[in-house]
């Protein structure tokens, strides 16, 4: 009873994220952080917790993200336009529809599938209270990415990436720093057309990545690559809108489900 009360207080006060777990392990998982380690949880509460976390995994599109965009929306936002043939990365060839007058065209049928999977994964991470970091080194869209992160209550990094941010975090920022649970790249290249350091570092730290890969990017280390244009402002605005809607939708759903279980618990306690 006391454990249930404490857990409800912790959750409602939004204290999940601020719980700093003092442990030498480099990374903590979002779902583990929700549990206070000292209490022995009551059995019904544990079953409720598990149900909240496992129920969404049984559906292929629990958050109905397929209705957020259509192929026509991607087309109108110029997502299918790639760079010139000379800039093409060899590993992007499976995602190309073809090359028209020296300009690569990305296959939007494939992009739609990849984008749905990526958004679904992002939604599940947000649902479980994970920290999402939006990364882009494209100076033209830095403000847009930052305001997107602010709008959905997550984080953004659009400046110079200092080397040990992920790999040396516990030395640079103190013991027990919580690292992001997901990295979303709106552009996987940095200002000198090399792959962003964070892609390699996230792979080293077992942090999943979602990345918009253009025809000149290397998609191999990105966990959920989304082949698409990363240079046009129209395309970036579409991606930012989609990710913002996804994260907000997932967080709202979590609050809704918890409220539902709280009410159910109250009813049962009354009976």
């Amino acid at each position: 009873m006391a454990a249930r009360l404490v857990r409800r207080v912790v959750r409602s006060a939004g204290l999940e994220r601020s719980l700093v777990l003092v442990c030498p392990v480099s990374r903590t998982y979002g779902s583990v952080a929700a549990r206070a380690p000292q209490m022995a949880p009551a059995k019904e509460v544990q079953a409720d917790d598990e149900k909240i976390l496992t129920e969404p995994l049984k559906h292929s599109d629990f958050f109905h993200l397929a209705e957020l965009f259509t192929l026509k929306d991607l087309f109108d936002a110029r997502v299918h336009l790639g760079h010139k043939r000379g800039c093409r990365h060899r590993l992007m060839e499976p995602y190309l529809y073809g090359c028209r007058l020296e300009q690569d065209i990305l296959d939007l049928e494939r992009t739609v599938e990849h984008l749905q999977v990526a958004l679904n994964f992002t939604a599940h991470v947000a649902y479980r209270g994970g920290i999402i970091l939006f990364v882009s080194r494209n100076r033209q869209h830095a403000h847009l990415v930052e305001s997107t992160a602010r709008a959905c209550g997550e984080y953004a990094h659009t400046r110079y990436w200092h080397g040990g941010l992920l790999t040396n975090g516990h030395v640079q920022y103190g013991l027990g720093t919580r690292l992001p649970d997901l990295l979303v790249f709106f552009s996987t290249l940095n200002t000198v057309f090399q792959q962003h350091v964070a892609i390699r570092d996230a792979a080293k730290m077992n942090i999943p990545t979602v990345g918009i890969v253009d025809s000149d990017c290397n998609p191999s280390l990105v966990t959920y690559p989304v082949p698409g244009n990363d240079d046009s402002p129209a395309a970036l605005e579409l991606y930012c809108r989609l990710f913002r809607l996804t994260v907000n939708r997932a967080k709202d759903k979590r609050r809704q489900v918890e409220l539902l279980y709280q009410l159910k618990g109250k009813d049962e306690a009354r009976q």
Partner: protein
Amino acid sequence: MAALYKAMPVRFEAGRSSLRPFLLSFRRLCSSGVSEEPGPGQTAEAVQSEERKPSGFAAAFELHRDLQQKQKPSVKTRESFASLLRRSPLVQMGPAKDKIVLGKIFHVVEDDLYIDFGGKFHCVCKRPAGEPEKYQRGVRVRLRLLDLELTSRFLGAHTDTTLLEADAVLLGLVESGDPKAKEQS
């Protein structure tokens, strides 16, 4: 050659819509001639109108109108990427060299105008000497495209170096009521 190109996309894009005013006017002509549902006291006229069956273009028009009415509920069918691409202005335009397009200025830095014309990249043009105060953000301009993306392979590099910009020559402002210049989506 340029004149031929300019005429072509207008005709291609118009498609069904250009036929519509013509069909509507024809419908008005038809309705005056052919009668509607025959009333109880108009049997003779009804018989006459039934005997006078439409032929030639009139028959084709009736068929087309029925088909259009049947097609209206099923607008939800998704257009494939291949057909979207084939009908897009970028593909219909062909090679970008010396094509006239409309653009919109979205950013101004002193004398540099950043103009978006619907391609992957924008182009940057110098503000022209005559009427410089007219070129502000949001103004529509005419451009002659030279290249959609400025790239080049330098010695010793294994991939092209790109400037992330298109190349175009600024021709001037868009005069309102100019039907000839083509606009990209």
